[in-house]
């Protein structure tokens, strides 16, 4: 009897040992794979980051991918205000501010319009409102190429050609479909009874919007603002087609910068310039990551 109990326990022990070893191996495989893959993801960022502090001579000798042997900050102010892009030698600052001047109003306006449209299309339905929502949705899928010539012509007629205001208008209308979609889908889940009660208390269209809907909206507002901000900041096609020279946004300037590469490439300054251009959306991502991902998955699966 005692023997039998002992061996049973022994078998269990051995099984437990095998199981825990197997678990250990699978953990090693999992973390090993994650670690390897994350190297592929981190290296490009690290390369740009570190090279913005190395001297160009050192990059030339040791290549882009190597540990820094020098450290200096010169590349940053040069990229910001001295570097030549397409004949203009005042750095990326001007283009950076163009993007700022474009992205802030365009994000605010398109988000506000999306909120109101979403509110109407979910809570104040009218005959045909579903059809309206349907063709606003189509705007989500429209390729920019289709709209290039009409926009160029329309902006010309409005006197907004080659200006930041023109791009603001383009991005507001371009973004309208997305922002309306986000808010409409969010507001659909707000119970109608809540609004009925408010109506019986005499609240009208705007009062319900400000007193009931907006207080419920911070999550979707953050999602939408992040989505619009990163999308508009990173947009290139409209920026390069509709604007030229010193009115272009930062994405177009970065392309002009890397194309205008003369015989010797100044990787140090270009690294700093790329980072300056990528910094605003990256900051938004690091501080609002959760909402960024939510927007991504919601934007994808309507």
């Amino acid at each position, binding site marked *: 009897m005692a023997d039998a109990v002992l061996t049973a326990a022994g078998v269990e022990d051995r099984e437990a040992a095998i199981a825990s070893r197997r678990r250990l191996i699978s953990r090693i495989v999992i973390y090993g794979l994650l670690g390897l893959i994350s190297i592929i993801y981190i290296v*490009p960022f690290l390369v740009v980051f570190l090279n913005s502090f190395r001297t160009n001579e050192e*990059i030339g000798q040791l*290549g882009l991918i190597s540990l820094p042997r020098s450290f200096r900050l010169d590349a940053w102010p040069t990229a910001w205000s001295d570097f030549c892009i397409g004949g203009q030698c005042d750095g990326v600052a001007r283009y950076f501010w163009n993007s700022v001047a474009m992205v802030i109003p365009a994000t605010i306006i398109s988000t506000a319009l999306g909120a109101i449209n979403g509110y109407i299309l979910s809570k104040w339905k009218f005959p045909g409102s579903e059809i309206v929502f349907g063709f606003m949705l189509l705007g989500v899928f429209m*390729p920019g*190429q289709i709209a290039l010539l009409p926009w160029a012509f329309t902006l010309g007629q409005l006197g907004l050609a080659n200006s930041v205001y023109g791009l603001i208008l383009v991005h507001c209308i371009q973004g309208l479909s997305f922002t309306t979609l986000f808010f409409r889908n969010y507001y659909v889940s707000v119970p109608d009874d809540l609004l009925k009660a408010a109506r019986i208390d005499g609240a*009208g269209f705007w009062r319900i919007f400000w007193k009931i809907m907006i207080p419920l909206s911070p999550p979707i507002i953050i999602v939408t603002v992040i989505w619009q901000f990163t999308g508009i900041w990173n947009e290139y*096609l409209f920026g390069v087609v509709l604007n030229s020279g010193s009115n272009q946004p930062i994405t177009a300037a970065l392309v002009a910068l890397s194309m205008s590469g003369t015989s010797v490439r100044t990787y140090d300054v270009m690294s700093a310039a790329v980072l300056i251009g990528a910094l605003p*959306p990256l900051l938004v991502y690091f501080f609002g990551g959760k909402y960024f991902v939510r927007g991504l998955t919601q934007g994808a699966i309507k």
Partner: protein
Amino acid sequence: MAMTGQSVSTGTSTWDRIKKWTPIFIIAPSIVASFVYVFVFAGWTFYISLSDSTLLPSYGFKGLENYISLWTNRRWSVAYTNLLYFSLFYVTISMAFGLLLAILIDQRIRAESFWRTIFLYPLAVSFIATGTVWQWLYNPSSGIQFLVNAMGWTDFQFALTSDRKNAIWAIIITGIWGSAGFSMALFLAGLRSVDPDIIKAAQIDGAGWFRTYRKVVLPTIGPIFIAVAVVLLQFAIKTFDLAVALTNSGPGISTTFPATYVYDFMFQRGEIGEGAAAAMMVLAALAIVLVPYSLYLVWRKRREANNG
């Protein structure tokens, strides 16, 4: 109006009627803007594609000539062949890679959000910035090839962007790097929505880790596979920024894409009519992907409704 039911009858003064119309007045400008944007702009571009426009828009009718000239242009055949080739590898590898990442992250790992942050950050960065940096990495005299050569393997060659035949792989690899995190995020959301009891039941039945995924988990998230594929295909059809930043359609014309073709013909060569025809083809390609997908979504919704 959904909620006006009980209150409409209480007053018929002008003020009430105005109030009733408030929402429609407010949304009207957005409706007009969207309508113009979606229908008028698309119709306009379509008309230009049938016109004799060259450097400037002109409205002499030319029929399908631009389309014929487009489809007989060797450059266009390079463009759509590239798109098909790119779509095939970019979509499948991004999905496989994203699924692998999602499964790895789903194993109750430590510091999950740290890992997710790493794999998703490329999505916050523009393809212009990403493409610029990868272009440097592909540069044989300073990037990856230089590194490997310096480490001792002096025969190693890796010069995708200057190689006509393989330059498209530079775009495929960078595209996957930029989008795999996206398919990871969608797959992870799907994996998290699978009922844990089903997984437990499978494990009690003695199914191993691999079998559990293959037979139990993945079949239940089938719709996510389709959604991810559709979104990635959309990205592929719209590929423009990456091709510009990485190879600028080169070497020669070897990495021309439909979207870069449009830009090139409209704004570099002054062939607006043919550029517009190419733009209509981009729209058609999107429709080929999205119309069946929307029908599928409607069908699925109906089936769910029928099954209670």
